[in-house]
């Protein structure tokens, strides 16, 4: 948690804007109980396409390292560069989600890496 504080301080303005946008968007789009957004951010170091889920599993570095599920069509802010490897991203996610892969006759099976959560929206660097 302590490593997250400098991150929050550095991006408090961006996070505040995103949170405000989330609240505004949530007023129109989401039910109140769906506002589960937790901040995340870091460098996208790997991207895996979950063939059954039709979503991308993004592996992100510090300050909030982990795997996050990104569905095509999820709201993005400029520079709209998800899921490219090498960009910095910052946004909100909701816990939950699964990365499933086609595995022949076995059908859809869980991928070896599973997400910390599902991205609700995010901005990126170029």
């Amino acid at each position: 948690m302590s490593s997250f504080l400098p991150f929050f301080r550095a991006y408090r303005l961006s996070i505040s804007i995103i949170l405000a946008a989330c609240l505004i968007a949530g007023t129109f789009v989401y039910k109140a109980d769906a506002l589960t957004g937790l901040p995340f951010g870091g460098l996208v170091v790997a991207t895996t396409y979950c063939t059954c889920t039709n979503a991308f599993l993004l592996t992100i570095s510090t300050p909030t390292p982990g795997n996050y599920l990104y569905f095509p069509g999820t709201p993005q802010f400029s520079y709209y560069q998800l899921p490219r490897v090498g960009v910095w991203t910052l946004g909100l996610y909701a816990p939950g989600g699964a990365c499933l892969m086609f595995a022949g006759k076995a059908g859809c099976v869980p991928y070896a890496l599973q997400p910390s959560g599902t991205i609700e929206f995010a901005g990126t660097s170029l």
Partner: protein
Amino acid sequence: MVTNTAEASSVFTRTLRLGDSGPDVLLLQQKLNADIDTRVAEYGPGSPGNETERFGQLTRAAVIRFQEKYAEKILVPIGLSSGTGVVGEATRRVLDIQTSEAPNTEPVTTTPATPIAPTTPAQAPSEMPATTATETAKKDIYISFPSSYYGPRGSKLTLAGSGFTKTKNTLHFGQNYTISDISSGNGTSLTVTIPDDAPHGKHVIWIENANGKSLNESFYVVTKENTSVPTITSVTPESGLYGETITVRGTNFAPKGNEILTNYHIIKDVSSPDGKTLTFSVTPFPDIPQLQVGVDLKRGIEAKMTFYIVNENGVSNKEKPGTFTIKI
């Protein structure tokens, strides 16, 4: 059957971590795959018979499972309770022991002739990922968001990131130009004025200070005075398959050396003889093995590609990227 370290000659001679590559990474994956509990992947790259020389996230996750399976031998002696994903000395020694083990056997229960892990704290960092080790030593340096990606000499550029030192940060513009002695009051941002002698054009930028070199790079275009940034006015067609030739119309494209930054990959050295039209082809995304030509997805998918034009004149409009839908 348990062998001790005297019988097992080490085949790993260096610390392995995320991002490393080489034959020893392939061997590491083979060893991890010998045990179903620490298998790198069930199928695809990294799976048994498909081991690679790349130490990626799957390998890191498998190493963590391995370290936690043999925690008593690897982690406990150096005061750790969870795996780090870094293959240091203690992990290497246990890997060597496992060479003669049958798959999915119980953890080693005998004490090797040579201690598996040193008990002195000084050895601990070799098993720790950089992000942990640096909490008490050097910090990782990252550049996250530049305030702008282009501007003429005299422009102010603020870099947000982490690991900046209070003084003596150096900003590199490519290999041949630097701005030195930059201060950062909070360690997470620094601001410079682009000097009057900064070379024009697009430069890869990175930070260097007492913590080392930044782990990622960004870029900045030093534009000439009174230039106009590239603009995108149309993209045709709007959708297509891999190999489709896309025509972009707009203004202020460079005769050569345009870069197209898409949300899947970067296309370099695109020319535009008339400055108003450029064309490029959509190729499979190199960083996403699941979306290559011939991969059976069981169904078609549509991926929206969003892109910007970058050249000596700057970057196309932040809020008006070009778009194209790829049908795979």
